[in-house]
């Protein structure tokens, strides 16, 4: 059953609004931010009742805002409208499962690579090989898949053939072609926009432990990648023609494998507000800004701070050519405040949805800061900003794509506990991500059993 909720009710607007517009309305932008840059941000654009109404009165968009993605998918499937909502939802699912694939692959590489134990059966080479392929490391994938251990995995025969061929093909890493993908465990079947496929039941592989008895119950590291491909195809099937290039731009940050330099548009492309609503991308210019930031780091700020709200927020946080995390935190707050003031401007006064909108923007700044810091090689600072973004990701500001990407980052750092909590919290919204659990659980057990002694306390 599709629940149709007024966004106003969801945000608790009714009954909480002040009696009328504030008497003193500032026409100028709050200090530190250009009025035009703020005006381009979706929170300000949607502060207008008429502009916000299509979202407020649409069950799909209400569900997107509430991060109820299953409900949103049903709603958009029932009423596709211009297709943007459904396309965006599939793009977000694609991004989500790309990060989930990264999480699973990172965990697998550590458990059976960095932290491999003598008791591990040789067949784990298959898992390592596929994980390496998922992460785009052709040579490592080929090496692992070529071992007798990998070849002993009966359930992995097709996977080994597909990935070995992929790894040895000229131009590797290249996207997996459809016929190859269809041969793999967990292949979701025909693309059907408006639905959410599930992965093959777990475990995908059972790797006997030999003399020790028992077996490792494993998920195929490529299963989540296949879900991502499916959702991307679904997005392309429904996206309006004029928005098609956006699919590539929006998914570029999540692509697995070596980073591919995208041609960054010199100007902000036309981006319908439907792609921005409730996201950390505040304005059209934020899309090319982040693409540029991934390649140029801090250097991208100067070119975009006059157009991109995220760049405008980050630029003052640079000291001696380096982004300073504490200043980014201050700027995230400042932008949120500026947006709230701008939303209240024009005689509208303060309303209940302003704070949730601003909180999403604040998290967006922190995430963007992490992108810039990471591109500059400042991984620790990027991590600090990610953790601060997590702290601020409460309620409607909790973007599942960010949360799973943080879990993937943790897995890459051999830090399973927070990753497990994040994954566990996402299962109700994305049941198919269960396939990421086995490798993450394996990482937790492996690290715990080889850690320094510890005792429980109260």
């Amino acid at each position, binding site marked *: 059953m599709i629940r149709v909720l007024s966004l106003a009710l969801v945000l608790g607007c009714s009954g909480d609004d002040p009696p009328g517009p504030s008497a003193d309305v500032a026409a100028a932008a709050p200090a530190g931010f250009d009025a035009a840059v703020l005006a381009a941000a979706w929170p300000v654009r949607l502060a207008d009742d008429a502009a916000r109404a299509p979202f407020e009165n649409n069950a799909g968009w209400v569900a997107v805002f509430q991060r109820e993605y299953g409900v949103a998918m049903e709603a958009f499937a029932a009423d596709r409208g211009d297709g943007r909502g459904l396309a965006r939802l599939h793009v977000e699912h694609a991004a989500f499962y790309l990060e989930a694939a990264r999480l699973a692959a990172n965990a697998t590489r550590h458990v059976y690579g960095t932290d491999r134990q003598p008791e591990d059966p040789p067949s784990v080479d298959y898992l390592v090989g596929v994980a390496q392929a998922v992460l785009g490391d052709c040579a490592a994938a080929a090496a692992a898949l070529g071992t007798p251990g990998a070849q002993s995995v009966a359930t992995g025969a097709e996977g080994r053939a597909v990935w070995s061929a992929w790894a040895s093909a000229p131009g590797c890493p290249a996207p997996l072609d459809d016929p190859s993908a269809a041969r793999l465990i967990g292949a979701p079947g025909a693309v059907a926009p408006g639905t959410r496929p599930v992965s093959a039941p777990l475990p995908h592989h059972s790797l006997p432990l030999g003399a020790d*008895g*028992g077996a490792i119950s494993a998920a195929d590291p490529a299963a989540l990648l296949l879900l991502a491909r499916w959702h991307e195809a679904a997005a392309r099937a429904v996206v309006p023609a004029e928005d098609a290039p956006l699919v590539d731009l929006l998914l570029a940050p999540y692509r697995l494998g070596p980073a591919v330099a995208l041609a960054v548009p010199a100007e902000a492309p036309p981006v319908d507000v439907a792609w921005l609503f409730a996201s950390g991308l505040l304005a059209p210019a934020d899309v090319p800004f982040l693409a540029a930031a991934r390649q140029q780091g801090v250097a991208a700020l100067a070119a975009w701070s006059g157009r991109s709200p995220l760049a405008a927020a980050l630029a003052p946080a640079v000291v001696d050519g380096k982004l300073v995390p504490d200043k980014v935190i201050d700027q995230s707050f400042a932008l949120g405040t500026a947006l709230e003031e701008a939303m209240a401007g024009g005689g509208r006064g303060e309303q209940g949805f302003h704070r949730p909108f601003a909180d999403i923007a604040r998290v967006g700044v922190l995430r963007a800061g992490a992108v810039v810091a990471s591109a500059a090689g400042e991984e620790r600072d990027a991590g600090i900003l990610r*953790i601060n973004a997590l702290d601020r990701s409460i309620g409607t500001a909790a973007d599942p794509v960010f949360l799973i990407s943080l879990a993937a980052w943790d897995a890459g*750092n051999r830090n399973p506990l927070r990753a497990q*909590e994040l994954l566990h919290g996402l299962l109700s919204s994305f049941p198919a991500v269960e396939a990421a659990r086995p490798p993450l659980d394996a990482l937790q*057990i492996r690290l*715990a059993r080889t850690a320094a002694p*510890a005792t*429980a306390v109260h």
Partner: protein
Amino acid sequence: MALRNALRSAGVTALALAGTGATLSYHEVSLPTTLNPLFAATMSDYRSQELVFDRLWFHDAVTNELKTRIVEKWELAEGGKAIKVTLKSGLKWHDGKSMSAKDLCFTVRAMLDKGTPSPIAEGYRGVLEGCEVQGGNSALIRFTRVFHNPRERLGFAILPEGAFQSTAITPDLDFSAHPVGSGPFKGSRGRRGVVFDAFANVHHQPGIAQLQLSEGNDPLIQVKTIINNGVQGIIAVPPTLRPDVSASDEVALKSYDLRSWWFIAVNTNKGFLADKRVRQALNLMLDRSKLRELAIGVKPGEQNSPCEFISGPFVQSSAYYNRAIPVVERSDRARSDKLLTDAGLAKQGGSWTWKGQSINLKIGMLAPLNTEAPDLLSLIGNQLGEGGFKRVENKISEDEWNRQILTGQAGDYDLLVGKWSFGLVEDVNDQFHSRGGKNGKVNIFNYANPSVDTVLQEYDRARTDTAAQDAYHRLHATLADDLPYLFLWKLDTKSAWRTGVRNNIIAPYHYFTEIDGWRYDK
């Protein structure tokens, strides 16, 4: 000579200037019971000790990278069964004496000394074999076997040899209240709080001059106090008050990664409670959903709440949690009553009796838990009362909990409400193995079940991760049936710090690992 003196003077000045920043006050869940890292019994102990001592190796709070502040260089020796560690020069203890390799070997020997009754040391006795001081501030630490990750096994805090008479270290020494460490702060425990004064060192330059720890009492007052800047931090904010903190622009909620779960331990050695059916009845008498709603503020059906029910001795996100074992969210009085009747209890005048005697349950709760879950003890008591049990309820001080309850001397009680906190290692053998020798060290009511002992021993002996996971899954199933504990929930911990406290990275479990970088802009 003049230049050397000038440089030395500049160094002293630099050291003296460190920590000339502000004072931070914060509320802890409880005062630490000890500042001696060998005897940490509470999370408050661990957090406080992290300020005072250096661990040989630790994990970076952000990137999880393995790091050290005191080791200059290291190399494997003796085919990997030993590691030669060279300490940095110029490291000072809080009493001004220099740290040397002798202190490192002293610490190892103290942990190996059977006269040191430390559960932490007990764990290291399976890892370390000995330590030998070598020249040039180096020590050779020997392991019991070759480990693929030797540095990861050396997470213990270094102690000063000069502060002890022998390697047999007991918890009652003055060192527990007035420790000598090498960490960024010098700590001194008083009756009402702990003061930590910054101590600059070659490896520590704390940006805060002083930390003042006090025990937080009424959580509402704690939150009002931080909003009014009466304190700058609260370690654990109860869920009911987190929206108040979030709404303030001057205070921020911060995640603190810790695995904590709550329980009601049952005295399986006491009369009618020895009957499993009675324990199962009590389990069904509880309405966990109502308890959670009233004590924690989580409404039924709320998604992704900070408080999630459990059916066994692990959190649901853990690899060891057996997801086939359902939680009991709501009470089932009919089933509960039938179990009690089958077990031979009878209701007289609305209250349960056993062998003709009226039952009066004595229920205790670790007192600091009331901050995170206000009134939980009375809520549990009320539900058991509605189920027909007379009861008396007590809050138990931390001191009594450590000295009496955890040492298996709680026989006077029928039920005890408590909490366990874990980091990466979720070993529960000490909680459920029958007490004796190295086993069952915190087995509250001296629960003894041979099949549980067998499973725990299988876990200990497991050669593979799969076998370890299988063993703990079976343990979960067994304990969910036998119920030495009524398992309640896991509860996330969130701290609150004023936004003027800058760069305040909170380390998983140990909390203050990155305290050197904290600053306070008032």
